[in-house]
Structure formats: C-alpha cells, structure tokens
C-alpha cells in the first residue's frame, strides 16, 4: 500500500524538489521539521547529560522537594503541557479533515496551555530566585543538613530556561498558525508541522520533569 501511495504522490506532484524517489514518503516541510527536531533533541540530550555528569561530580544534591512544589506547581505544569499536546493532536486531526472551526478552536486551546505553563514557570523561577538561587550558586538560607552545590541552581536555570524558550517560541509559532487558520489561510500540513514542534517540546519536558524534579 505504501508503494501505491508513493506512486500516487509522484504522479500528482510537479515540483523538481520532489526528486525521483520519496524514500521517507513525507513532504519537505515535515522532513525538515523532523531533521531540526533531531538536532534539537541532541542539544537537549547534551544539556541533560551535562546535568547528570555535574550532579554525579558534585556528590551531594539537595532534595528537590525542599525548593520546588512538585505536587502543586511542577506536577500541574506537566499535566497542562500533556493536555496542550493532546489538544494540538486534535487540531492536527481536525485540519486534516478540513474542519477549520475545530482546528482554530483547538489551536487556541493549545496556545492557552502554553501560556499557562509559562506563567507557572515564571512563578516557579521567581520563588526560587527569592529563596536565593542564582545562576552561579545559592546565596539564600539553606535548611539544616542540606548541601546545595552551585550546579544545582545553575543546571536548573539553564535547562528549564532553554526549554521555556522553546515553549515561548512554540506559543508564538502556534499563535501565528492559529491566526492564519482563523483567516482560512492555512494548509493541514503547516498545522501538522507546527504540531510536531509542539509535541517535541512536551516530549523533552517528560525527561526534564523526571531528571530535574523527580530523581
């Protein structure tokens, strides 16, 4: 069936960029987004590996629960991001079915989820900085018997900041896509490609959540 699909593509497309073969059987924008996401995944992998190495090198690490509210801030942030990924999936599905109303509605829901996530992250950063966390170390009051190596706040700010930057770009990207969709000037493909980016941001958070907050 896949071969028939490729033949059909070749018969109906006229762009020289399609080439003679379609080894991946996806459009160029989608393939390019995947290639970007692979490089981005490796950047995050490098940051998280660096975090792991620094944490082992430090030998001591404070319990994250002393500084972050897992149950009422970080947990809900994770829930919101998963929900926004689900609404994004529905927006893509609706766009493929030509249902513009649902596409626009769920794109805006996804944007809302992203904004909520960013708001909670801003709240978390603010309280962590007020407690004495700096990029270069911890200057605040430290609970009895707890050691806070400078890598603890440093890795936290760099990694969650890099991810937060991705969420911010994603919110802008999705907002543009949503506004274009609301005007009717969109293709199902561009919603899908935007969706790939957004799901990736959620996927990376799965590991950040586990490695920075839970382990």
């Amino acid at each position: 069936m896949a071969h028939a699909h490729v033949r059909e593509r070749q018969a109906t497309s006229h762009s020289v960029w399609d080439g003679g073969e379609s080894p991946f059987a996806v459009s160029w924008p989608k393939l390019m987004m995947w290639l970007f996401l692979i490089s981005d995944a490796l950047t995050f992998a490098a940051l998280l590996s660096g975090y792991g190495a620094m944490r082992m090198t430090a030998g001591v690490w404070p319990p994250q629960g002393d500084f972050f509210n897992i149950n009422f801030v970080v947990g809900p942030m994770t829930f919101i991001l998963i929900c926004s990924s689900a609404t994004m999936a529905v927006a893509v599905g609706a766009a493929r079915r030509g249902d513009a109303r649902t596409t626009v509605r769920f794109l805006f829901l996804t944007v809302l989820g992203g904004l909520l996530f960013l708001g909670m992250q801003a709240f978390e950063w603010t309280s962590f900085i007020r407690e004495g966390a700096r990029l270069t170390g911890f200057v605040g009051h430290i609970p009895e018997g707890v050691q806070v190596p400078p890598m603890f706040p440093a890795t936290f700010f760099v990694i969650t900041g890099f991810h937060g930057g991705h969420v911010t770009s994603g919110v802008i990207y999705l907002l543009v896509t949503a506004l274009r969709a609301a005007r009717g000037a969109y293709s199902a493909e561009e919603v899908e490609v935007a969706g790939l980016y957004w799901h990736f941001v959620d996927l990376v958070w799965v590991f950040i959540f586990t490695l920075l907050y839970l382990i």
Partner: protein
Amino acid sequence: MAEHSEARHDGTPWYRTYIVVWVWLLVITVIEIAAVQVGLARLLLIGVLMSLSLLKAALIAGYFMHLRYERLNLVLLVLIPLILAVILFTGVVPDAITAPQLRR
C-alpha cells in the same frame, strides 16, 4: 494532501486514539509522582522513572507525532541519531562517578 493519512480510519471517532494516549500520559505521570513518594530504593526508583519516561516519550512520538504511521525509513532517521546521546552520556559517567571519591 489533507486526505493522505486517512487510510487508518476504522469507524471509531477519529480522536479516540488521542484521548486514550492523553489519559495514559496523565496516568503514567501520576504513577511517577507516586513512585517518588513511596520511597523505593534509589537505583530501583531511577530505573522505574526512566522506564516510565521512555514509555511516555514513545507514546508522544508514536501517536501524537504519528511516527508509528510513518515509513520505517523516517523512524530510523529519527531514532538512530539518539545513539549519539547514549554514547555522550556513557562517555562522561565514569569520570563523573569517581570525582567525589577523588576529592575525599
């Protein structure tokens, strides 16, 4: 172009898979948070949490990003470079582990 991925439509509501995956992602997240509070042994906890994270990542990539429905070529293109991440991590671990002991 909008129709090209409709082949897998099977009569149930088209968004059903997304809802099932969404619920699973939330359930796994609850299990993760609970696992931390149960107080498992350190290495066991790390093993459990990393396995659950990989499961969540697979659900997101497979169903939300439709990787499960793409050609094997694309799946391999995405997965193979991740070996580099494993090499990177295993490369720095031996030094990182011995560092605290050297300082004592």
